[in-house]
């Protein structure tokens, strides 16, 4: 018999102060307290972090890969957003 489902959580770790929390992986837990304890056991056995976030996976809204073109393509055509688009004489030096 297949067990009842236990919610899925996403785990984020800050490896040192000054760095952002980074996605480390997922786990299943009944509630936030258990998720945090499991995250500690599962993802920080070798001093990987100083701070943990656990987020219910269902709380994340993701962009659809099928919309990739519509979402991200326009930036490729807007090259004037990059510093290399502009010409500054060499004599001016680094800018």
């Amino acid at each position, binding site marked *: 018999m297949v067990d*009842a489902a236990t919610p*899925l959580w*996403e785990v984020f770790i800050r490896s040192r102060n000054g760095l952002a929390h980074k996605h480390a992986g*997922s786990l299943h837990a009944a509630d936030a307290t*258990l998720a945090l304890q499991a995250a500690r056991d599962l993802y920080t056995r*070798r001093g990987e972090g100083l701070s943990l976030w656990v987020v219910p996976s269902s709380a*994340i809204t*993701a962009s659809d*890969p099928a919309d990739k073109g519509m979402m991200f393509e326009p930036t490729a055509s807007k090259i004037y957003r990059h510093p290399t688009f502009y010409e500054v004489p060499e004599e001016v030096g680094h800018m």
Partner: protein
Amino acid sequence: MYTQALNANPDADTRDLEDAAQLARFEARVADEERIEPNDFMPAAYRRTLTRQISQHAHSEIIGMQPEGNWITRAPSLRRKAALLAKVQDECGHGLYLYAAAETLGTSREELVEQLLSGKAKYSSIFNYPTLTWADIGAIGWLVDGAAIMNQIPLCRCSYGPYARAMIRVCKEESFHQRQGYEIMLTLARGTAEQKEMAQDALNRWWWPSLMMFGPPDAASSHSDSSMRWKIKRFSNDELRQKFVDATVPQAHFIGLTLPDPDLSFDAAAGHWRYGTIDWEEFKQVIAGNGPCNRDRMATRRKAHEDGAWVREAARAFAEKRAATKTAAAA
């Protein structure tokens, strides 16, 4: 990001309605070394192959805790005990990273676990051999983890992103496993005559089953072609097996142990150690459930799962009660 929060995906079968253009785009992306992520289009066969491979890999890590767990309470020193405990805990972690990666393909954790417990899913043949003496713990770390590493390093470049990322984590942790095993063997090999004999006996029993871990010979292997094209696999079974033999033989010689293969010889021209014939009938039997410990491993796993049922139920009930209290307070 593993955002498939759905524990079971009802339209898993309709999602891969394949049109030729989509298929061609997928093949081109893979050929181009692009990574495939959970919500991307993938052919149904790619999804099926990966679900099977990753979940079998996860099951192997979980069942793999048993042969070594058998010696935790009898480790010869506190140093060895702490290392073994940490190693077995790592193997559990590997199983859980891998289940999470498999779930992103649309099969729920509960279903995957059920496939193991019902005997529908397979796990690595190696874990159906018994650990008779302490030297077996050395042999497992050195040979079994050594073979696993050979297999897993190329998987870090697997075309499926979540699997590749899980493998990177796993590989970082594996090297301690192999080194602690080799250190045990080295210590025994340099110990009393009796200790050396124990190390040799363990090597004799684990050598051939370790070679079988790489799977059937290339000529007989059924899944390889598409796995290679899809960049799930980077090397064939025989190629990986040869790499393992070449790496391991000198390590055995260094500690003065003899490999239990009268046909083993160095092919100087090719730069490879040539090994004798593997008993594939034994492999078939172990996979079919007739190895020395298959029944025991499954019975232990099922019992552990059943014994934990009340904990899972209590945690769920508590979470539901807390959620209800919160809603009531907010109302």
